[in-house]
């Protein structure tokens, strides 16, 4: 185990999604209570082995959504990694259930979903189930670690919008590229234009 110097500690491991991790940065996720859910024993083993390399000893390994639900009802976790494609209850259904479960703190736990292939019919599920991140394969240690560090630094609030409950899905900070399409911001801009016009008229 490395003992981090204060200067290394001050330098953050990553800035944003997709940014490469700096090799010298130090992270400590040793104490993370982690659950991995995958119907494939081999894929589950690969994920736990990768986590072990990062210093995370997986506390719960589950082969099905039902098994995971039983544990999540009773035991608090810090991180959930779940496969999208599973028989009976798939990963999307598990995450949707978790977010709506009212279980505190588990309903707010960071969730990384993994997928070998995302069905076209499931793309909206992947977006709307409430996961913090969906990682599509090829599986690599660097991608998994990059996403892990990112969600550990994730400051997005949790939102309830209609059927959705999960982290704010808007990643981008600041101005949107191209024409603004967000209705709330369009209405705000219209209001401000009208107010400015009215003030000019008054003056």
């Amino acid at each position, binding site marked *: 185990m490395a003992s981090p110097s204060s200067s290394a500690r001050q330098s953050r491991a990553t800035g944003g999604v997709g940014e490469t991790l700096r090799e010298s940065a130090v992270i*400590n996720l040793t104490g*993370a209570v982690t659950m991995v859910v995958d119907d494939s024993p081999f894929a589950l083993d690969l994920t736990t*082995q990768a986590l072990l*390399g990062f210093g995370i000893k997986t506390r719960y390994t589950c082969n099905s959504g039902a098994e995971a639900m039983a544990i999540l009802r009773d035991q608090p976790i810090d991180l959930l990694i779940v496969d999208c494609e599973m028989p009976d209850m798939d990963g999307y259904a598990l995450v949707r259930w978790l977010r709506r479960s009212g279980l505190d703190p588990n309903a707010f736990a*960071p969730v990384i979903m993994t997928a070998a292939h995302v069905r076209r019919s499931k793309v909206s599920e992947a977006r709307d189930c409430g996961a913090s991140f969906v990682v599509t394969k090829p599986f690599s240690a660097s991608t998994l670690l990059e996403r892990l560090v990112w969600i550990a630094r994730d400051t997005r609030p949790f939102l*309830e*919008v*209609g059927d959705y409950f999960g982290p704010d899905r808007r990643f981008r900070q600041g101005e949107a590229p191209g024409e603004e399409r967000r209705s709330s911001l369009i209405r705000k801009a219209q209001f401000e234009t009208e107010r400015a016009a009215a003030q000019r008229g008054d003056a």
Partner: protein
Amino acid sequence: MAVITHAQRRSNLSQMIDKPGGVSIGVALTQARANIEAKRGEAAAVVDAQILALESITAPASPAELTARLEQAYHAANAVIDAASPFELDDLCRASAGLCDVIDAAQPGQAFDWRIVTVHARSLRLLQTLPLEETVARTQVLESLKQILTKKLPPKGSG
């Protein structure tokens, strides 16, 4: 539509990541890659078993059987990607992903050309047995599969 924003809370992960101790990113990646690499032999056995499973799926005798057989084939192809992708067996992953795409695009109640599954199973077996240095032959296999996908998949944006 009403939007309820929950008070921002720091996850346990965010509280522990900067605590003293831990491991550098470089060391973490080296350890994780070594742990994964130790599974290479097991991965080859899983890939072999899943290709065998794919080869063993018989063509459906009736439309009623089609959905279940396609699901079996989808899961086998999916499992090949699971096992092959961490070991840079990109050709196997590409061929399997193509089969997943075709099965995913199959419309319920419509006929499906089962030869697509058979050809993919044979191609996967060929890619698995061909030496890695046989790049020309491997490319040819992938090109043939690509032609099938071009014919059978709906154009992008139509779904």
